[in-house]
């Protein structure tokens, strides 16, 4: 079933970009739905299986999108903080420069 394969590879992608120390509800949901989809296939409830697989794929895609956004936002935050520290460092250095004979 191609919907299942699509869901599986979306989950693999989401795992790959996962942000460390950041629990992703969407990814957990995607995994649970994939398991449920497999169970539905086993019961031969193919319509339900394909719906669950589609949901799992979308959950995983959302998990990926959120993880990538968070990563860049963290880089930004670090950059902002670093620049601020640098600026303060320069401010501290400037007066001593002027006091030098």
């Amino acid at each position, binding site marked *: 079933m191609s919907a299942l394969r699509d869901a599986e590879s979306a989950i693999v992608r989401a795992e790959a970009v996962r942000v460390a120390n950041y629990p992703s509800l969407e990814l957990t949901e995607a995994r649970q739905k994939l398991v449920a989809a497999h169970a539905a296939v086993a019961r031969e409830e193919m319509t339900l299986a394909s*719906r669950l697989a*589609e*949901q799992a794929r*979308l*959950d995983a*895609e*959302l998990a990926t*999108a*959120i993880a*990538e*956004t968070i990563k*860049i*936002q963290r*880089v*930004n935050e670090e*950059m*902002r903080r*670093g*620049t601020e520290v*640098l*600026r303060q460092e*320069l401010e501290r*250095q*400037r007066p001593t*420069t002027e006091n*030098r*004979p």
Partner: protein
Amino acid sequence: MIPCRNSPASRVAFAAVLSAVLAGCASAVKDPGADRARAALLELQADNELATRAPVAIRDAENAVRAAEQPQDDPAVAKQLAYVAERRVAIAKALAERRHAEDQLGSLTAEREKVLLGARTAEAEMARQRARTAQDRAQSALDEARSQQAAAEEARAETEMLRKQIEELNARPTDRGLVMTLGDVLFATGKAELQTGARNSLDRLVGFLERYPERTAVIEGHTDSAGSESYNLELSQRRADSVRTYLVTRGISPIRIVAQGKGEGYPIASNETAAGRQQNRRVEIIISD
């Protein structure tokens, strides 16, 4: 069987009959999730920072929401469509936020570069100031060395000049100071008036005293032993006075000059011979160091 939707039968005036008929078939439904998806999409489209940043994902979300808004015979299908719509909107929002963050990263990097450039400029300015200070110090040390050298040169020249002047005065250094001895050629025998020939030696003294204004002079008159002691004392005083007067008329301040008649009491040679007596008849000028 009467179709559930868009059938002329559904517009039949007999409502009771109609509802009874409709109750027998599944009514067309729209999942409440469709409305939530629409609301979230509207919010995303109204956000100026995000609306333009993920156009493809937002169009996909729009299509998914529209599909979810179509009433469905099967509630499970409606529910699935609403779920897809909500997820599509959420994905579009996350993507737009990511693009926004990427743009911010660009301007944050530019700002960092600016601050770093400022840091390098400040550092260069500091280095330039340090170099300038060092250069200034070196220059003033050089200037000082030069002026010390010049001062030493001047002092040496001054000493040399003084030595020459003293030589010209025919003076000799002693414990009391420089002593200049003027022989008896200054005065006629028994007279205290300066002879014309004396002026040359005294003018050299005037020149010297003008050049060294802090120096003072003691003028001592001496005689030989011919004549009475009191006469000699008085004559030596008048002679010393006349030297002093001459110096004063040439512009030397009287407070710098003391005239003393010493009489015959300080001979420098024997009074027994004519040559000795001539040596004893003299004026000595003692110049302070």
